[in-house]
């Protein structure tokens, strides 16, 4: 196999361009350097830790250990969705549309992938379950965040337009439809770009990894296709569910907008 083991020096060298970006951000006082540094440090710590944890889980091959690991991943992803909401809902609703859709759609998609599509033996084998769940969560997280931020921004900034539609006799769902369409497009843009570019402009990350690690290209392609379809489906469904929940909460049964239910209105 053409598998080249990377030294830690090689990994450190790969960060050079990123360090230059951070230095430029610092130089031009773009107020970005701190968050860039923080994100990079966190990624290194997270991945190193995860490598060790995966080593443990793969050797344990115990369903409960896998479940615990998956729960931690889901919890972190849900927390990230909450934190990245630009206009969160007030009270416990902060946790409902986004994070709940992520968990629900994510778990359903994972079960579908394992029980119907891949069918590993046993079905909860950590080597398949955890990476697939990770990709589902990571991509849905992005989609949900983009979709929620777009729809809540529309409900805030396009209030006159939405209320004009309500005044013309639209229901709350009809009234936000043009903006919901735009928000869904926003949520799906990253995965649609990835699908359009796949294989021509870029080799997708997972496929690149597999090929670099020595897998036959056609096998890597099959896995990549499966992953892309799963991700696109799951991102679409999860963002739709999150947006629907958020629209439902930000309107009421008298078909009016309720921006007072944003968290900002509380204080």
């Amino acid at each position, binding site marked *: 196999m053409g598998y080249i083991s990377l030294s830690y020096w090689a990994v450190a060298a790969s960060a050079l361009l990123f360090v230059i970006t951070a230095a430029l951000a610092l130089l031009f006082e773009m107020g970005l350097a701190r968050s860039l540094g923080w994100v990079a440090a966190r990624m290194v710590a997270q991945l190193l830790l995860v490598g060790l944890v995966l080593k443990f889980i793969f050797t344990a091959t115990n369903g409960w250990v896998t479940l615990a690991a998956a729960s931690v991943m889901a919890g972190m992803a849900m927390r990230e969705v909450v934190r990245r909401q630009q206009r969160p809902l007030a009270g416990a609703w902060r946790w409902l549309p986004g994070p709940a859709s992520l968990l629900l759609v994510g778990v359903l998609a994972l079960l579908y992938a394992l029980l119907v599509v891949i069918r590993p033996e046993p079905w909860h084998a950590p080597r398949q379950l955890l990476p697939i769940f990770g990709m589902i969560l990571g991509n849905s997280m992005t989609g949900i965040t983009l979709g929620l931020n777009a729809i809540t921004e529309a409900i805030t900034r*396009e*209030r*006159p*337009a*939405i*209320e*004009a*539609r*309500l*005044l*013309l*006799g*639209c*229901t709350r769902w009809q009234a936000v439809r*043009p*903006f919901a369409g735009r928000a869904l497009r926003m949520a799906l843009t990253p995965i649609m770009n990835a699908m359009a570019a796949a294989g021509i402009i870029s080799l997708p990350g997972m496929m690149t990894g597999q090929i670099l690690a020595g897998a036959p290209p056609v096998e890597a392609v099959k896995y990549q296709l499966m992953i892309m379809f799963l991700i696109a489906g799951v991102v679409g469904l999860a963002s739709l569910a999150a947006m629907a929940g958020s629209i439902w909460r930000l309107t*009421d049964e*008298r*078909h*009016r*907008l*309720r921006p007072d239910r944003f968290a900002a209105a509380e204080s």
Partner: protein
Amino acid sequence: MLEVKALARLPMLQPTSFSVPAGECGVIMGRSGAGKSVLARAITDLDPNEGDVLWRGQSRNAMPAPEWRRLVAYVPAESGWWAERVSDHFAFPGDAEALLEEVGLPAEAMHWLVARTSSGERQRLALARALAMQPQALVLDEPTSALDSESREKVEALLRRLLKEGKALLLITHDVAQARRLGQRFWRMEAGVLTPLLEPG
């Protein structure tokens, strides 16, 4: 008759009751921020509120809000637009061209880009858009504030036609002369309290 019964949105709007018979124009005057728009929004149920509004004895609270808003149309002072072309804001653009002429706009205004229209044009387009649903009563917030005198006269002639057809009109305006020309009943809004006036001004 449009009957407003103990309509309130505290603290901006104290419990308010009044009525406007079909074929008449009620005029509400008052400073900016006095609560005139709060009242108009409460009538069409755009914000949470207490009380009820009736049109010909039918209760607002007893019917779905979209149905009520088609019956009692509200045209806010600032109109909202969600698409690029004017025609995308009309359910049946072809049927509404006569209305455009009545507010002093050419029929081809239907194909204009909203972003290229003036505030006076948007004001009249918003009125035509609301009238296209054939509402029974109208709540108009400053419907001619951005218009020149010629267009304003056209809009007022249109409003007189609607009154003759038996529609009820609730007009919010700063224009005392306009209030005199169109109104039969007058109120002043001050700090969320509506008081009847014998005549405008």
